[in-house]
């Protein structure tokens, strides 16, 4: 069939093109929008490979959460992106040269690549034939790969502790709500009854 090939090239070209626009766009908001386009096309590529779970996760997590967060950050923070990009053109030739050499070398490697028949047999956890790959992941994630799963959890815990350590500041002079204090107030501590002589007012206000 020609359709899978056509869609592959469509998604691949759009993905690479929008990835380039992410770094080339002048307006940071446009950059983020191009990033979303790149994510969606990458998820299309995953679909073509039959990895529908990864495709959907890419859309849900990266487009739905990460990219939107980026948009917020770009819009909320007053970062002068034009200034940050000052050196971009200056470094472009060297960067492009390195990238071109790397690409050429990779193509040499890819050209020599013949799939070893032993490799196909060596797959550690092949996808069972009659289940979707979401189900197949679920079957091994908490059993066979429990070690990795728990370790990834600890990595995320460290990320959370790190974010709190580096950003949380307890400022001493801020008024905070203290529910125990509020509940502990009684009539005696909270109000005061005074006799006010007419036409004179109070000498000093309470508290």
């Amino acid at each position, binding site marked *: 069939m020609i359709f899978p090939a056509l869609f592959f090239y469509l998604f691949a070209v759009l993905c690479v093109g929008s990835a380039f626009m992410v770094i080339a766009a002048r307006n940071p908001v446009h950059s983020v929008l191009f990033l979303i386009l790149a994510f969606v096309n990458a998820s299309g590529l995953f679909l073509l490979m039959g990895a529908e779970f990864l495709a959907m996760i890419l859309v849900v997590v990266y487009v739905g959460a990460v990219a939107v967060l980026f948009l917020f950050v770009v819009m909320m923070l007053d970062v002068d992106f034009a200034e940050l990009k000052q050196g971009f053109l200056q470094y472009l030739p060297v960067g492009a040269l390195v990238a071109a050499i790397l690409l050429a*070398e990779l193509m040499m490697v890819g050209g020599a690549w013949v799939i070893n028949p032993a490799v196909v047999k*060596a797959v550690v956890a092949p996808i069972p034939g009659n289940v979707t790959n979401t189900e197949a992941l679920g079957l091994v994630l908490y059993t066979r790969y429990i070690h990795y799963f728990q370790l990834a959890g600890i*990595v995320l815990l*460290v990320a959370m502790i*790190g974010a709190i350590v*580096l950003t949380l500041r307890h400022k001493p002079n801020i008024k905070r709500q203290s529910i125990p204090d509020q509940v502990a107030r009684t009539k005696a501590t909270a109000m005061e009854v005074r006799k006010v002589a007419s036409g004179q007012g109070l000498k000093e206000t309470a508290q």
Partner: protein
Amino acid sequence: MGFEIAGYSLLPVVPELVLAVGAMALLMIGAYRGDRVTGLVTGLAVFLVVIAAALVLWLPPGRLVTFNGSFIVDDFARFMKILTLTGSAVTLLFSRGFVAAATRRMFEFAILILLSTVGMMVLISAGDLISLYLGLELMSLALYVVAASQRDNLKSTEAGLKYFVLGALSSGMLLYGASLIYGFTGTVSFAGIAAAAKSGSLGLVFGLVFLLAGLCFKVSAVPFHMWTPDVYEGAPTPVTAFFASAPKVAALAVFVRATMTAFPGITQEWQQIVVFVAIASMALGAFAGIGQRNIKRLMAYSSIGHMGFALVGLAAGTPEGTQGVLVYIAIYLTMTLGAFAVILALSRHGEAVETISDFAGLSRTNPLLAFFMAMLLFSLAGVPPLAGFFAKFYVFLAAMKAGLFTLAVLGVLSSVIGAYYYLVIIKVMYFDEPIGAMEPARGELRAVLAVTGLFNMLFFVYPAPLIDVATLAAKSLF
């Protein structure tokens, strides 16, 4: 036995489990009690690390494997884990003085070091590429945070950010290499790669190069060393002591394990890379250290050079070479921790000082401190009969036996050049005019200095225990 999960025995991971769960319990104590309990949390953290070390020794002997071969406990892992835990425990002791000051109270510091240590232990026991990567990230992520932990200090935040950005780049390279290796062999486990990569192919070598680049970054070997001096200088001094000790041991351990167990079929290919990296690191460590004024930057270049010497043993690619690496890293750990105990002890009028000229006349104001520092510096330089000499002796001997004569000769030459800057500090301590008395050092610093100093001085009297254990550990990889 019910001591298993999803059919895998949990016995080999008991030390890691105790450390991780203990760290979370301490986190709860800290979260409920606030920064007042910093001293208590740090003390308990030291206790936990000691328990974990005891558990590592308590595990039944021999080779224990669990989680489908992704977690291996053998004599090599035991040796490296004990060294790593020693480094972490001593660093936590060092940090007690640092976090005691009211403005720097931070209970998370000890917890991050504990979790980083869990990552190192996973890294040392890694039997495949995924647990290698997860262990590496767990270790590094905590390190980025502790480097930036003095967030109001410009240099500290710069150090954290620089380390983070470059570390992310190196992780990317490592992952790319891992994916190439997986693509060309069809497996992530080291044993499987070794079986599939008997002949070796261009693609596999490509992946290997990227994998080694990522690992070289973690051991700060040239040409991936750029971050080291700035991060060492900017980070708080106890953190620098940590960077120079435990993570180096863990990263070197996984370097050795990955090359020896996953790529024994293509030794020729990785040997070239390791030889180049070793020569470049030794040379840069020797020359770039000469112009330094700041003792922490000097220690950074010193550690780059020492990693080069340790890699000489790996380049040999033989059991003797591996034994040399193990002896080297053990002795390097004691020398570095001792030197950092002195650097931490230096303070005048309540301010920590860290330039080399501040050592002036230390022999008259603090004769004992100066004497131990001089011995440690001689050991770092590799002057016989101190321990540092034997460390270098074993790696060079292994390189000669493997026929790498050029490498050994270049190593000896750079060792001689590198001795210059260690001798400069000794000259400043013994022959310059004193510039005012130092404040008395804290008890734990003196204890660490005494133990490491005596170890380095008296190692030659009875070196057999360390050499024997290292030989056993090296054998378990082959």
